[in-house]
């Protein structure tokens, strides 16, 4: 496999403009002769489907939900970044680009990130025109808030529901095209496989989740906008049905997977309560602006927080990082919470939590001020835990919530499988080893509204795409394989539930391939995963049939893919012996115990190629060349 990133020549600031000029176009009258399948209806999928339909292409869009509006983009709280510089505080496209590359710990592609920063402003223009109610100032102009990893205020927001509002905007755009019949929407349809004919992605096999029927869909290009793989950990902040299946099956059909070990762990989530826990809830990291993080100085101190005197508390972030204190980046805040808990200082029933204390802030600015700033978050915390954060410190713990790795794509967002594109969280390209807050919404919409609808023209206009029908042997074969797999899952009738297996896999990954990683732990996980997988295929219990709505079967089918994907994730983590972004490799640290990057050996994208079920995947390295930005070691001391 030869990976060509197709980064245009020339200065970074001119690449995208030049590239748009060089892209071949399809004549407007001819566009209706081309069809594109979009899998996923989140920010990236809905915006791409709508925009390509506006251009005249025939679009089929798929979601496993009952409505496109339910995609998990909806849960994003904080906001969306753009380089508008409305606050006049020194922001620029270049600064947004630089912050994103630095925030990603110098493991993202410069050209892609610059383009992201460049189109960020158009996104805001477009979303305002869509009637998205962004927060405004009394003068009527758009308001901005600040976010981690930046010295400027560049985040646009709609209260604590920015993801919801942007998604509803994209869903509106999609609905507008559904009304015109330029987009055909398939709800409650899960994509089971990608169909490849003569080396090109030519369609999908989808399963109607209500009738169980497998159907074949052919197109000239296929776009995956299927989100990330956080749910491989079982517990994450992702929605219950978020999965890696479409991306994983594309990988098995020839699309390379990049940096699967890059996951982001968010520091301010509500801790796990018990065995029954099904998912984790994130609270905006803006809480760290006023909350102070601490644990008791004594191990296993079971006293209620308010009974622990001031001099018996360890404000460990303030102690270790005096200049940034509680506002260190996400990765440091998360890792240090895990360290203190692993050492036995953790609080709460499970010992896996630290305090986030607002007592001092309430005394300083008053309860009303704190309520105005964080009222909705305090309410959410109270609803879930039944505790009052105004009087008792919150308990928080890190949780997996985003994956920077994904399908490898070139500058055009095409995977290594011709005709197959990956956009949004599904691809790997823009966030490097760590994503900054308010950048996920920006990337999803950049890809969907502005990048893909430009770059996909090039493929459709210049490649020879022969006419095929769904009667082609490749469709029949993919359908048979899919059906056999479902039948096999139903036939096992073992003694353990799908969730039981998923939980076991997730815990293994959390312990060994989460925030802190070591060769020993990773090798242990690598040995254990195939054993869990083997038992899964012998002993899982999937009730019901394949002929109607069967949620257990849906889940089993997704977990079966996680069982395979997990192995690649751990292999990638084992291979990357450096610490970078949110990933602390124990063997790679400074004398002070901080993460140590190794630019000489690891300034590359680790890209994996499937070689067959029983064979080791091949590793290809795409070197990351930094022409604009100087690589530096991050320091927040």
């Amino acid at each position, binding site marked *: 496999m030869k990976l060509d990133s197709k980064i245009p020549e020339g200065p970074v600031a001119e690449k995208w403009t030049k590239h748009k000029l060089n892209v071949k176009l399809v004549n407007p009258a001819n566009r209706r002769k081309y069809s594109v399948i979009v899998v996923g209806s989140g920010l990236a999928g809905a915006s791409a489907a709508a925009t390509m339909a506006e251009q005249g292409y025939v679009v089929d869009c798929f979601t496993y939900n009952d*409505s496109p509006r339910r995609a998990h983009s909806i849960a994003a709280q904080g906001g969306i970044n753009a380089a508008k510089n409305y606050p006049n505080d020194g922001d620029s496209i270049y600064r947004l680009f630089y912050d994103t590359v630095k925030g990603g710990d110098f493991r993202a592609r410069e050209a892609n990130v610059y383009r992201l920063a460049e189109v960020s402003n158009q996104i805001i223009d*477009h979303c305002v025109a869509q009637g998205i109610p962004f927060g405004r100032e009394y003068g009527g102009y758009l308001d901005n808030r600040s976010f981690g990893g930046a010295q400027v205020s560049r985040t646009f927001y*709609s*209260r604590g*529901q920015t993801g919801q509002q942007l998604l509803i905007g994209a869903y509106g755009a999609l609905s507008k095209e559904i009304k015109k019949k330029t987009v055909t929407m398939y709800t409650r349809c899960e994509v089971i496989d990608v169909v490849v004919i003569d080396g090109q992605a030519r369609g999908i096999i989808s399963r109607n989740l209500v009738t169980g029927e497998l159907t074949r869909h052919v197109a000239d290009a296929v776009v995956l906008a299927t989100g990330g793989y956080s749910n491989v950990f079982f517990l994450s902040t992702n929605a219950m049905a978020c999965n890696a299946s479409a991306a994983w099956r594309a990988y098995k059909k020839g699309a390379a997977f990049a940096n699967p070990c890059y996951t982001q762990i968010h520091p301010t989530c509500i801790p796990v309560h018990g065995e029954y826990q099904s998912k984790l809830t994130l609270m905006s990291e803006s809480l760290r602006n006023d909350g102070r993080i601490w644990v008791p100085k004594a191990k296993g101190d079971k006293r209620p927080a308010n009974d622990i005197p001031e001099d018996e508390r360890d404000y460990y972030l303030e102690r270790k990082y005096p200049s940034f204190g509680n506002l260190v980046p996400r990765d440091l805040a998360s890792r240090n919470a895990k360290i203190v808990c692993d050492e036995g200082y953790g609080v709460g029933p499970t010992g896996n939590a630290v305090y986030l204390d607002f007592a001092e802030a309430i005394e300083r600015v008053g309860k009303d001020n704190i309520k105005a700033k964080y009222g909705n978050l305090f309410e959410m915390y109270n609803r879930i835990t039944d505790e009052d954060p105004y009087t008792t410190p919150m308990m928080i713990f890190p949780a997996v919530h985003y994956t920077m790795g994904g399908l490898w794509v070139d500058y055009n967002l095409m995977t290594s499988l011709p005709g197959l594109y990956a956009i949004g969280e599904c691809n790997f390209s823009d966030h490097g080893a760590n994503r900054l807050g308010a950048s996920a919404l920006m990337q999803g919409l950049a890809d969907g509204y502005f990048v893909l609808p430009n770059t996909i023209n090039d493929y459709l206009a210049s490649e020879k795409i022969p006419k095929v029908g769904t009667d082609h042997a490749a469709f029949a074969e993919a359908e048979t394989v899919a059906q056999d797999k479902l039948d096999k899952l139903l036939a096992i009738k073992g003694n353990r539930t799908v969730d039981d297996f998923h939980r076991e896999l997730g815990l293994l990954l959390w312990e060994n391939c989460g925030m802190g990683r070591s060769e020993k732990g990773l090798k242990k996980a690598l040995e254990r995963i195939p054993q869990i997988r083997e038992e899964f295929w012998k002993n899982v219990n999937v*009730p019901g049939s394949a002929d109607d709505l069967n949620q257990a079967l849906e889940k089993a089918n997704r977990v079966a893919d996680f069982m395979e994907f997990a192995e690649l994730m751990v292999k990638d983590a084992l291979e990357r012996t450096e610490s970078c972004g949110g990933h602390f490799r124990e063997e790679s640290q400074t004398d002070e115990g901080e993460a140590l990057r190794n630019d000489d050996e690891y300034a590359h994208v680790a890209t994996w190629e499937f070689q067959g079920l029983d064979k080791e995947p091949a590793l290809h390295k795409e070197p990351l060349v930094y022409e604009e930005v100087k690589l530096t070691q991050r320091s927040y001391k």
Partner: protein
Amino acid sequence: MSDTINISLKVWRQNQGEEGHFEVYQAKDIDTSASFLEMLDVVNEQLTLNGKEPIAFEDDCREGICGACGVLVNGTTHGSHEKTTLCQLHMRKFKNNEQIVIEPFRAHPFTVIKDLVVDRSGLDAIITEGGYVSVKTGNAPEASTTPIKKELAEAAMDAAECIGCGACVAACPNGSAMLFTAAKVSQYALLPQGHPERKQRVEGMVGKMDELGFGSCSNEYECAVACPKGIDVQNIARLNREFIKASFM
């Protein structure tokens, strides 16, 4: 600290095209810190291990924003604790040895797909008729060219918080989707971006609502009580004004 309770569940079971019926299950040692859906997970694990089919119910984000979840709990939508979706309802709200009756949302246009899962695609069909601003990607002027009064932006946001769960329809004795439709119509009636299409929007959406068999509003206001996002009934008044105005346009 959390406690455990024993409860008995009377749950509606139904396959598509068949008649439904209630079944009773015992749920023992349920942690009161668990959410309602986590309690159902526990029950489903047990059903599975006992060779029975788990209860089908809809959910996804489990943080109260996607709008996928929603059933009737003891006759009320989402269990009707103020501004709470079912996924955010916790078992500490229930008593030991309580019987909880769980049914799907009941409304004429919401047919049962299986057990507690209903077809709410009618709500999407209403949006398709105009619940958006028809702006193509690339059309937009610079974002700051149109200042919008903060109060209007806030009121639009109040309406835009709707999560499309359908509780308003299920709570209405007429099975009306007025609050749902009114929330979207209001958002765009309040903002200048929505004005060019206001006539087509309100007429198209209301027309589709009628066509699909959603009932009329008779000012019961049950919808606003049921709404997990606190969407105000004033939006219905605004919808009515928009509708009347449209006939003069």
